[in-house]
Structures are given as structure tokens and as C-alpha cells.
């Protein structure tokens, strides 16, 4: 069985923990608790007829006061960049993180997740914004609240990790 380290990266309060909770436990809570440091979860998935044990590192969100520790990112096989659909600034933060990761870790499989799409009326991120983002990265719209796109995001990431030749 393969094991893969997957990091959840993004600005604060974009829904990284909610996505993990939805993915691992199929649960969701409206109550917000900021993640301190890192929280680790795992889930076994089957993708491309392979069983992959995903070790999920849910890392505290980045903001002007806190930058993600590079040491947490060491050895990761892929990561999910999470953006809040209702806050455009989180897309900028995601771009910053992406560039930093690429600089420090190299090209690593990544999926951009636009979370909180259930709040579409408050959406600040347009299709044009998304088009201007890094073109190679799959973009998936999700809602941890409804579960939409969550499974797809992780599956897509695992698929990318496997097909990167890291078997």
C-alpha cells in the first residue's frame, strides 16, 4: 500500500479543516476553530486501482502574521490549495503559497479548491480570476458544507500524485 503526504494549504478560515473533516469523517460543523500548528488525519482511498493511504497535514492558515513553516511541507507528495469563494484575497494568498512551494520544494502535484461555493451569492472570485491563476493546476469548486467537490478534489490530487510516477 502506498502512503502519500498531502498538505492542506491556504489562507486562514478558507475551510481547510472542514474539507478534511468532510473527506475523512463525512462530517461538517458551522463552528469555526482556528487550527494551531498542524493537525494530522488520514484516509485510505482507491484511485486508478491502487490503494493509497493519504496522510493529511492540515496546516494552520497563512495570514499577515503567520507564515506556513516550510519544514511542515518537507516530503509532501502533493497539496491542496484552498481558497475561500467569498474572499478574493485568499486567492492571492494561495498564489503566494504556490510560488513559495515551487521555489522551495519544486514542482509538486497540486489542486486548487474554491471552497464555500454554497455561498455563491457572496462570491468574490470570478471565472476570469481563475483563468488568470496558474493554468496547469486543476481547479475544483467545492463546498465542505454540502460535500460538493470534496471527494473529487482529493481523488484528483491522488491521481496526479500517482501519475507523477511516484508509485
Amino acid at each position, binding site marked *: 500500500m*502506498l502512503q502519500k503526504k498531502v498538505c492542506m494549504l491556504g489562507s486562514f478560515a478558507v475551510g481547510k479543516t472542514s474539507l478534511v473533516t468532510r473527506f475523512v469523517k463525512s462530517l461538517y460543523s458551522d463552528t469555526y476553530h482556528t487550527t494551531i500548528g498542524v493537525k494530522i488525519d*488520514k484516509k485510505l482511498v482507491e484511485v486508478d486501482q491502487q490503494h493509497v493511504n493519504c*496522510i493529511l497535514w492540515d496546516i494552520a492558515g497563512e495570514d499577515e502574521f503567520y507564515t506556513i*513553516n516550510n*519544514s511542515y511541507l518537507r516530503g509532501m507528495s502533493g497539496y491542496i490549495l484552498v481558497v475561500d469563494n467569498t474572499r478574493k484575497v485568499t486567492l492571492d494568498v494561495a498564489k503566494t503559497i504556490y510560488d513559495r512551494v515551487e521555489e522551495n520544494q519544486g514542482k509538486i502535484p497540486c489542486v486548487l479548491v474554491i471552497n464555500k461555493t454554497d455561498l455563491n451569492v457572496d462570491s468574490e472570485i470570478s471565472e476570469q480570476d481563475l483563468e488568470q491563476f496558474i493554468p496547469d493546476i486543476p481547479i475544483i469548486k467545492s463546498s465542505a458544507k454540502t460535500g460538493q467537490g470534496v471527494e473529487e478534489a482529493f481523488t484528483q490530487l491522488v491521481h496526479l500524485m500517482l501519475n507523477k510516477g511516484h508509485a
Partner: protein
Amino acid sequence: MPVSSNQNVNADITQLKSLKALLLEPEREELSQLQQLQHAFARKVALQIADLKKGQKLTPQQLAAELPEAVLHAARHDDALSDALSPTIEASLKVAIKNDPQGLVNAIFPILGPAIRKAISSTLQELVNSFNQVIEQSISAKGLRWRFESMRTGKPFAEIALLHSLIYSVEQVFFIHKDSGLLIKHEISANAPTQDPDMVSGMLSAIQSFVYDSFNTGQGDSLESLRVGDLAVWIESGPHAVVALVIRGNAPANLRLILQETVEDLHKHFSNPLEKFEGDTIPFSRSSALLRKCLKTQFQQPQKKRPPIVAMIIISLAIISLIAWLSVQWYDELRWTKAVDSLAKTPGYVILSHQVDGRYQVEGLRDPLAAPPEPILAQHLIDPEKIDMTWRNFQSFDKELIIQRIRYTLQPAANVIMTMDSQNRVVFSGDAPYQWISRLQQTPPILFGVQGFELSDLASQERTELLLLIEKIDQFTVPFELGSHSLSPDRNTHIKLVSDLINRALDISKITGLALDFTIIGYADSQGGQELNQKLSLDRAHTLYQQLKETSQLESATLKGMVKDANSESTINRKAELHVNLKSVPQ
């Protein structure tokens, strides 16, 4: 090497080549042969592959010929063939076992039996040892403390005892990829609690990263240990992997050495897979042996055999108390048994049951005339307050009690002696009032156990008295003066006395029916004429008779006269004698 001309160099080279040829020729030839064989084999395989590609299948015979060698070759090369065949072999084994489980049992039976026996023996031995240890610990102060701790914490006593006996125990070993924090292998000792090892290893890695980032430690520095309560986590890092031990207790310093050696060995044996690690843990399957070397446990050595004085004293006291109590119980039981035996031997008692159960209990049959039980039991020092007796009345056939019953019924005189003979007849002896005897003869009582009465040895009191009276009366003599047949007045007192005796005798005679025969003989000597003396003697008898008639109830008597020889003492011959005897003796 000194500089020389080209010629010298060429000569040196030639010499060197010759030397090489001399030294290495055999190996060279062998190598050459091997290479040729390899090429031939490769050609063969290539041909066969070409054949296959052309659609020509290998015949089974061809395949059978090549297959063993191919398998051997593959096994030497890598584990690919094993990995490829494993699923198939596993599936085949499962089917085989399912179809014929007994076959498998039979096959492994020779190994299974001894292994099971050994396991059982070992387990029993461990059980006995641990039982001994627990018993020892239970009695000691330490053991009591541990029991209290067990009650307080809710943990089983065995676990508490084990923890206190433990010096240290390595419970888990984590083999973690350094960069990613992914768990490569995890080993755990038996009965050790564990969380999800993947998440534990991830968090350990995250903690290490946190420490490294937070405290700006040097490049080569890393977190080496954590401690939480009883548990310590020792971490040792290598270039590509980290090994973490979860230790309970206080491990010695040399365990760190073992940990370091393990990290080194892992890097040595798995350097390639570690460098290329992308999450696949299969290449590390053989690392278990190295990791399990770290699962060490050390218990406290049993202290030198110091006799447990307190425990021995307590046990001795307990044993002594038990013996004393048992002795008292036994003695009590013995006394009671003897007391009951005494009671059983007492006439008039039949014991049905007896026991000692806190109190002394006896149940049986008792003749109302039997002796009271309390004094008998008291002789054996049985506390009368603690005795519960249940008696039912019955009539005993004990001779003693029969006699007693008769005595109670007949109320004999004190002089009557009663015994029972072998034919269960009551034999009376002694003397009793005539009327009592007569009544007994006429209407003997019916008594159970009595076959009859024997009265032949029983004398009536009256007869006895009568005989005494006769004895006294008989030979009563009154003297007369010479030639006279008158009684002197000074004889009145004597006559009165004998009259009383006669009266009493006559009274008894009437009661008893005994007839008395009175004879009065008058005596005269032979001086003078025979006729005169004869008449005198008769007169004398008559005088006495008359006197007695007046003073007593005497009604008749036989009178006789007797003349004695003149040579006899004269006073003796001038008298009258009274004689009395019985006519019949009642039975």
C-alpha cells in the same frame, strides 16, 4: 615510480601482464566460461521469446525444463517473482485449506503438537511464577499498597504489580521517513496500548519540525526525547529516516546505543529504498527484524531471599489459631461423644441422634424412671446451659428399671430385696408384712418384661417375729416350793412378761394363720410316793396354765406332769415349763 626510458616502461608493462596472467589466469578462464554460459542462456531465452512472439508456444516439456532454472535465477536477482507469485500462492493455500483442512492439520501436526505443548507448558510455568509472585506480593506491605492503588485507579492488580516490577519496557518502535514523516514500519510489543501509528508518526514529525523552526536549532540537531508521565519517546535521526521508541519506565543509557545502531543498520540495509522513498513501504518489509531488536523489557530482579518475617508470623499465628480452634472443636466433640456414650449406657436411655453445632444437641428415648441426664452429662464437664435435649417417653426393659418400677408399684417394705433372674422373673428375698406377701401372691401385678415372681425366699415379718417369740416363750419356767403347787407372788412379773409374749404370738398366729401348740409340763421329784408326785406335777402344770389363762389370751394348752429321779437336783425338779411350737409354716 622512477622515470625511465620507453623501453623500460614497455618491459615493465610486459612483466606486469605476465604477472597478472600468472596470478589471475584460472579466475579469468572461469569468468570467461561463465560469461559464455550467460550469453548462451540469454540467446536461448531470446530465441524462446522470439518463438513465443511468432505464435509458437513453448511445449510443457520445454517449459518444465527451463522453469526451475528461471525461478532460481529470478529469486537471486530480486523479489519480483516472489511478489508476483504471493497472491496466487495465498489464494491457492486458502482454497486448499478450505477444501481439506484436515490435510493441513495432518501436515503440520508433528510441529503443532510439540509447539502447543511447549506453549502450554511455558504459559503454565509463567502462570505459576506469576501466581507465586502475586501471592508473595499480596501478603507483603508493598502488595497491600499496590492493592489500594489498584482499587483507587481501577486498574487490575496484576497490571499494577507488573508496572511496579517493571524497570522499563520498549512498547513501540516507529520507523519514519524523515522528510515526509510517513510511517515506514511500526513494531509493537504484546499488550502495549497504541494509537493510530500513521498519525503518531506524522505528529512526531510535525513536533520535530516545530521544534526545529521555533528554536532555530542547528542543521544537525533534532529532538531526541519526549517525556509524558510514565512514557518516554526516544528519537534518533539518520540522514533519511527517524526511529522513535516509546518506552515505559526508566531505560538505561545503553538503550540509546541500541537505538543508534538500529538507525545505522536501517540506513545500511535500506539506503536505496530510503533515498527513493515515495510512500511505498514494501521494500522495507524485512526491517521488522531490526526494529524488533529494540523491543526490550527489563523487570526488577527479585530481591535476595529475605524471609518475610511479618508474613511468616501472621501465617504462623493463623495456623496456630486454626489448630487451636480445631483442637478445641475436636475435644469438645470428644467430650460430648463420651457424655452421650455414658448416657446411652445408663439404664432407661436410648440415644437416637446427637451432634455439636454451637450447642450440644441430643435426641432419644427416655424411661420416666431413668436417672436424670444432667448429672451424667455434668460429669463430662458439659455446660448444661448449652445442652438441648429432646426426649420421648418409653418403657425400658432394663432390669434395673423393671425393679424400680415394681418397687414403685408394689411399695414393698424396706427389707424386701428384689432381683431378676435369667428368666425375667422377679425374685423376692428378705422379709415383708404377711398381708403384703399374701396380696402379692393373690393378685400379682402385670408388668411388661416380667415373666413372674419368685417369693420362696421372702419371709413374712410376722413369722420372723413369731419365731423369736416362740424362742423367748419356749422353755419358760416357774419354780415351785417343795411339795407345793402354788406360785409365789414374786413370779407375777415374770408371768406378766411371758403373757405379753404369748398374746403377741397369738395375735401373729391369728394374722398369719400359724397355729401354736402350747404345752405346759409340771415337774416333781421322786421323793415321796409316785402317785403323789405325779399329781403334784400335774397340779403345778395346771397352776401355771391357770395363771397364764388369766393373764393372757391363752385358751388351751397340753398339760403334762413329769416326775424326775430323786437324785436329780431338786430345785430343777420343782417347776413348771411352758413349751410352744408351730403347727405349720406358711409358704
